[in-house]
């Protein structure tokens, strides 16, 4: 992880937003495919969404079709798609929670919610810039939603969800059971690790590496639960995801250091190693 050599900082910082716009225009000009993510926990509506997109937006590329919120969020970090079509009721993270996480990143992404029933949450979408479509999909309405998304991608500044709309949607948040402890098998022993003692989690292929303190000393363990699934059970205020494969306890962050325009890392309290902060999460460290 110690792969970040301090580099000379350049003066391109202020050009960064314009660069994003420029790249987006380039993409449109050269007809680089727009990347899309779709998420629905049921197979039929997911496939219907895929078919509808193929029909109404043939030049776009579906980079991920996920079956639940946890996967959707992880795939978002992996592919950084330009638009997401999210079902609302999904296990792990609801579509709204995924959208909230996306909104907290600095990545521009247009979001369309797909829901079966015109309930109170839908009223909130009407108020904001967010779009929604009802299932079963209606061709005309879906084409309209696609047009709106295309318009928003052309103007990346507008593509983020307004914070107040997300706050309105907070009411539909699903109640996750907060995780209190983790179980790690070490030989024949099953060790219980209090979540409060964890310094950070790091994804390690099929396992998750847990670095934690125990009686003043630091220890390490491997658990079977994938990092993305742990996320739903962790207190988002306390545990920050700073990278697709790293979740860190904010109590142990000493500082964040910008390396260059696109790289940043954090230094942990009383520990030698640094952890990478990916582009999506650099907004967490704005300085006040």
């Amino acid at each position, binding site marked *: 992880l110690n792969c970040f050599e301090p580099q000379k900082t350049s003066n391109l910082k202020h050009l960064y937003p314009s660069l994003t716009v420029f790249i987006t225009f380039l993409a449109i000009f050269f007809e680089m495919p727009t990347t899309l993510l779709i998420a629905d*926990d*049921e*197979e*039929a*509506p997911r*496939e*219907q969404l895929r*078919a509808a997109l193929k029909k109404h937006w043939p030049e776009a590329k579906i980079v991920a079709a996920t079956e*639940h919120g*946890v996967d959707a969020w992880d795939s978002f970090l992996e592919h950084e798609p330009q638009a997401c079509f999210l079902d609302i*009721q999904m*296990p*792990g993270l609801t579509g709204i929670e995924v959208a909230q996480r996306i909104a907290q990143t600095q990545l521009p992404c247009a979001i369309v919610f797909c829901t*079966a*029933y015109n*309930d109170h949450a839908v009223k909130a979408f009407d108020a904001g810039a967010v779009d929604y479509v*009802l*299932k*079963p*999909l209606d061709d005309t309405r879906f084409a309209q939603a696609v047009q709106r998304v295309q318009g928003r991608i052309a103007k990346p500044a507008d593509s983020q969800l307004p914070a107040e709309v997300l706050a309105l949607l907070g009411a539909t948040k*699903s*109640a996750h*059971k907060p995780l209190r402890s983790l179980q790690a098998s070490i030989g024949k022993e099953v060790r219980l690790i209090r979540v409060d003692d964890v310094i950070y989690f790091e994804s390690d292929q099929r396992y998750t590496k847990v670095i934690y303190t125990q009686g003043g000393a630091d220890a390490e363990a491997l658990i079977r639960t994938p990092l993305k*699934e742990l996320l739903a059970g962790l207190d988002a205020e306390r545990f920050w995801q700073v990278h697709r494969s790293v979740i860190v306890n904010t109590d142990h962050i000493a500082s964040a250091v910008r390396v260059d325009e696109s790289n940043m890392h954090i230094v942990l309290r009383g520990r030698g190693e640094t952890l990478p902060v990916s582009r999506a999460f650099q907004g967490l460290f704005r300085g006040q």
Partner: protein
Amino acid sequence: MTQAINPFIQPGDGPWMRRYLNWAAKHYDKFPEPQRSEAAAFDHWLYSRRSIPALLAALALLGGLQLAIMSAGAGFWLALLVVGLMVMMGVLAVSRAWLGTEGMEYLTKKPIKGWRRDPMLGMLWLAGIAFLGSPWGYMFGRAMRYPDQVSVQQLALWGWESVRGNAPITLALVGFAMGVVVITQAVRRQRMAHELERLQMQRERDAQAALATKAELKVLQAQIQPHFVFNTLAALQHWTDTQDPRASDLLRTLTRFLRRSTDSMAQELVPLRDELALVSDYLHIMQQRIGTQRLRFEVSGDDATHEQQIPPAVLLSLVENAVEHGISASLSGGEVRVAHRLTGDHVWIEVSNTGTDLADEITEGVGLSNCRARLAAHFGASAELSLKRLEPPPGALATLRWSMKVA
């Protein structure tokens, strides 16, 4: 003869009564409401055969009074005068008490102020004036008759004679009037209390009816959730678009489910067999939608329970909860089990899911409390509905139990 609709005329009134009421209507209208209808009701009573016993009784009372006064030594005409005065006083007192202060104000269009607002004090005032006035009249009369005897002492003597002679009659009249006022007021108060009670009961009945309608609506909503229907339609739409063979099976099950729910909705109780069939259809639809990997289910138990009656959609609500909060919320899915059996006098039904654990603080939604209320309404205190963690975890177990003796 065209006549404006007279609200005081009742069906069955004869031609004379009608003519009288047409004349009296404009006078009734001078009174405020309850007195207005009371006056009409009184007239209806007075001018019918029903009043004959009361009139005879009144006649007997007055005759008795006349004879009593005569036997005390008064002459016929004097006794008649006293009786007449008593009747007048009675009528005045009854009218005053019947109208009440507000009624008087309404009738005279003038505000009544101060102590006059109290009919009792008014009565005392009238009696006091009469009592104080009478010795002067007596003195004057005597002085006219025996002008030669007039002196200060003699006038005082006549005055005292009048006071002493009048006092019992005055007291009797005042007592009688006050009695009438008290009785009238008491009767009025009692009637108002009755009326109030009737209105209260009416309101309660209305509220209960509204509550029942609301509960029925909730049953309707509980049984056919729009989320469920539209999500199922979304799957159907896709499978018909792609000519997937799953479409026809799903459509058949959905149709059967909807027909069964609308049928049982209209009933207060349904056989458990029907409810179990409904639950199986629901689970089948959900399984087709979310896949056999995510949802496995089993409905099993004693055939003996099939004939037991249960309020519709109670069991379905429990199963919907198990699927929505247990299975759909879990990343890996799980199994839903519905088990029913008879033990002694009790019917037991268990709904378990192996999806997600219950949250630490079990928050009972409207669905569960609604189920509980409907079970209690049919099976009384013998009905129990509990929700707890499934052992071994993860999962939740809802247990439903009621006594057949009550049912």
